[in-house]
């Protein structure tokens, strides 16, 4: 396999202060199945979006089949070059049938009899990949269960009309498939690569990666840190390559507050996917971590607790969003207004929000959490991402809330800010506030008294601070059924 299907050289991409890709080189050979693994935020998705033309890299070179594309790399040119993607967020139209969805990616499916051709095309491919799939090409996608939708989308990615098929990117393709269909897909991958199609397989199921890939690339902190034939890896060595050294452990060991099992319980919740079994319990003054791979039910559990559905909470709550744009910031408002919005009721005197008290609260928190701005009356968007995030912390910590829910709040925050905020969280916990802290950064778990690891919407393990290690969290995050 000497021919290259696609090659990336020195690709860098930053989002504000965060460096998502720090110079990645990646080669996929013709007919090769490349396994791509890495922990949350390692840069896998960003890299794939660059390949698909959905994101433009800051620097770096891309060649397709050894030739540099003549025009700017975009969704359309990537499509024309025969690159197909199955991303985690589904890109099917729910109001159209399976066959009609095939039409959307194939310009050639038009004119008289297109529908019959589309049906045949997608049915043949479904039959080939997932024998006994039970999907009718005329089924409306919105009516199909999630697993079948994923099957339809995978099959669509492998259909060929006028454009050639060069590379298929499968990002967690089996996340909604059962064991049998997942097995069918892996078998098909072997068949398809034998025909010369290149495949990039991203999965958190290491068994899948080890068995299906020819070669495995491990990403960490926006770089490809290992690239070797799959045969040379096993579960343990792969896990070791992904993990980071538990830096600062010694420091955090001293700073870690003592567990408080005797304090009163303030939150008792059972994740909706849990069924019977372990509950999530938070004592007063505790910092409780929610860990595991992204999207495995941590945020959902936080929202469930916030809505007090299936959860008993003693005391007022505040929520600190990680996705600032969609969950946190009011972008027409000043910094001050963004800080005080959670405390308006307590700032109200005789029916009106007291402007003096409001300004006072905003000033206090500007100083306490060091929001860097000439004036709190400036619009919130004049702040850097890290300072916007501090504003959200100020909003929650400045309120009357005794239970603080944090939804991976350090996304896109620089190191300096992080350290300031960690200290503040510990101080607030010592003063009696309780924190529920979902984080995708394993390092941050060292600040927690207890960590609940989530997988597929369930708590798979509860680890006390004393027993916490990255290896154990990874193990629980990647736990496959039966292990």
């Amino acid at each position, binding site marked *: 396999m000497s021919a290259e299907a696609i090659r990336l050289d020195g690709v860098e991409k930053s989002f504000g202060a965060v460096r998502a890709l720090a110079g990645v080189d990646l080669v996929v050979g013709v007919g090769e199945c490349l396994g791509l693994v890495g922990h949350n935020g390692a840069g896998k998705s960003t890299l794939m979006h660059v390949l698909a033309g*959905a994101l433009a890299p800051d620097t770096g070179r891309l060649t397709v089949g050894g030739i540099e594309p003549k025009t700017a790399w975009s969704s*359309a040119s990537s*499509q024309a070059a025969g690159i197909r993607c199955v991303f985690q967020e589904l890109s099917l*139209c729910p*109001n159209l049938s399976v066959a*009609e969805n095939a039409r*959307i990616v194939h310009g050639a499916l038009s004119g008289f009899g297109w529908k019959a051709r589309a049906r045949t095309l997608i049915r043949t491919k479904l039959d080939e990949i997932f024998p006994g799939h039970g999907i009718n090409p005329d089924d409306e996608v919105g009516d199909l269960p999630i697993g079948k939708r994923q099957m339809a989308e995978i099959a669509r990615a492998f259909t060929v009309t006028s454009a050639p098929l060069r590379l298929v990117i499968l990002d967690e393709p089996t996340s909604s498939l059962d064991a049998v269909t997942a097995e069918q897909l892996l078998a098909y991958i072997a068949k398809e690569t034998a025909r010369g199609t290149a495949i990039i397989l991203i999965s958190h199921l290491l068994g899948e990666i080890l068995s299906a890939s020819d070669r495995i690339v491990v990403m960490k902190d926006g770089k490809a840190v290992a690239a070797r034939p799959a045969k040379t890896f096993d579960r343990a060595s792969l896990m070791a390559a992904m993990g980071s050294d538990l830096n600062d452990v010694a420091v955090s060991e001293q700073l870690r507050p003592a567990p408080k099992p005797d304090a009163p319980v303030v939150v008792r919740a059972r994740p909706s996917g849990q069924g019977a079994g372990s509950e999530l319990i938070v004592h007063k003054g505790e910092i409780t971590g929610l860990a595991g791979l992204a999207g495995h039910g941590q945020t959902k559990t936080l929202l469930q607790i916030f809505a007090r559905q299936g959860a008993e909470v003693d005391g007022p709550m505040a929520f600190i969003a990680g996705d600032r744009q969609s969950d946190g910031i009011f972008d027409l408002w000043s910094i001050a207004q963004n800080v005080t919005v959670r405390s308006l009721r307590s700032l109200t005197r005789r029916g009106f929000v007291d402007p003096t008290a409001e300004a006072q609260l905003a000033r206090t928190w500007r100083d306490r959490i060091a929001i860097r701005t000439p004036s709190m009356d400036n619009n919130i968007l004049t702040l850097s991402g890290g300072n916007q995030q501090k504003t959200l912390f100020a909003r929650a910590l400045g309120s009357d809330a005794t239970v603080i829910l944090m939804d991976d709040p350090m996304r896109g925050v620089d190191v300096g800010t992080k350290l300031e905020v960690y200290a503040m969280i510990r101080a607030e916990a010592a003063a009696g506030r309780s924190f529920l802290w979902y984080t995708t950064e394993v390092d941050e778990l060292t600040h927690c008294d207890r960590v609940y690891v989530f997988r597929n919407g369930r708590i798979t393990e509860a680890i006390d601070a004393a027993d916490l290690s990255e290896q154990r969290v990874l193990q629980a995050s990647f736990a496959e059924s039966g292990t």
Partner: protein
Amino acid sequence: MTNPRLLRAALPFLTLAIVLAATFYVQPRTMSYFGLNLMLQYAVPIALATTAQMFIITVNDLDLSIGPFVGLIGVIAATALNASPVLGAAALVACVLAYGLVGALVHARNLPSIVVTLGLSFVWLGIAVMILPSPGGKAPAALKALMTVQTPYVPFPILAAVAIGVIVHLALMTTSFGVIARGAGGNPKALARAGWSMLRTKVVMYMLAGVFGLLSGLALLGLTTSADAHVADRYTLYSIAGVILGGGEFMGGRVNPMGAVVGALTLALAGAFLIFLRISPDWQIGAQGAILIVVLAMRALVTYGEKRS
């Protein structure tokens, strides 16, 4: 497993059947060629306006100007088209092009379609009033003849409604362009990612709405024989109600051309039914509002059932 989607698809037809049965029960004499012809003649322009609205709703917008537009077309056809066929035809074509332009504007500037089309409704009305300050004009003889044609066995309005429904169904539900148009309502991001131009799709859909608004205006003129700028003001409401009665949804590109036509028939029939019931004309609009609310409530129930299963 009973299929709630099937139930929902059948809902418009069920509603029409109920209203029709009730009408026959209250006034058995309507169960005849002439009875149906009389009751349903205005269903044709309403069905055409409803179809126009449906094209706009397909791409997640709403058109509050279709009523005055239908009125304007009638005015142009009853005046300019008679005086100078070439000029009149050119004016009508310009109206359709204007619709496309509005679609482009709404898309390019990402404007709320309600506000734009609300302003547009004043433009249409103003032009119509400028051409014809008070009711008058004369329908071209051919239009009159077409709208009053006596077809054998089945009354013309029914044939026309079925024809409209079938043609639009074929165009929107079975052609490869129709897929793109509906996909643009269902998942615009995915469409753009696959390399389709949303601008072009929107312009085409707005122009199709313009074409069907034009047909609606001509059909209405054929029935009224003289024009009035305000004659179709209520069509805006009818057209939205018709799409909804027909099982369409406001967002997500889920529309049903046959259903929309059936919804329009239901609305036209409901008017007649309420008269036969001797409900005072005061409650005519109110009863239509009530029908709309009842159907929406039934749909909410079906959707609820769907979610639970």
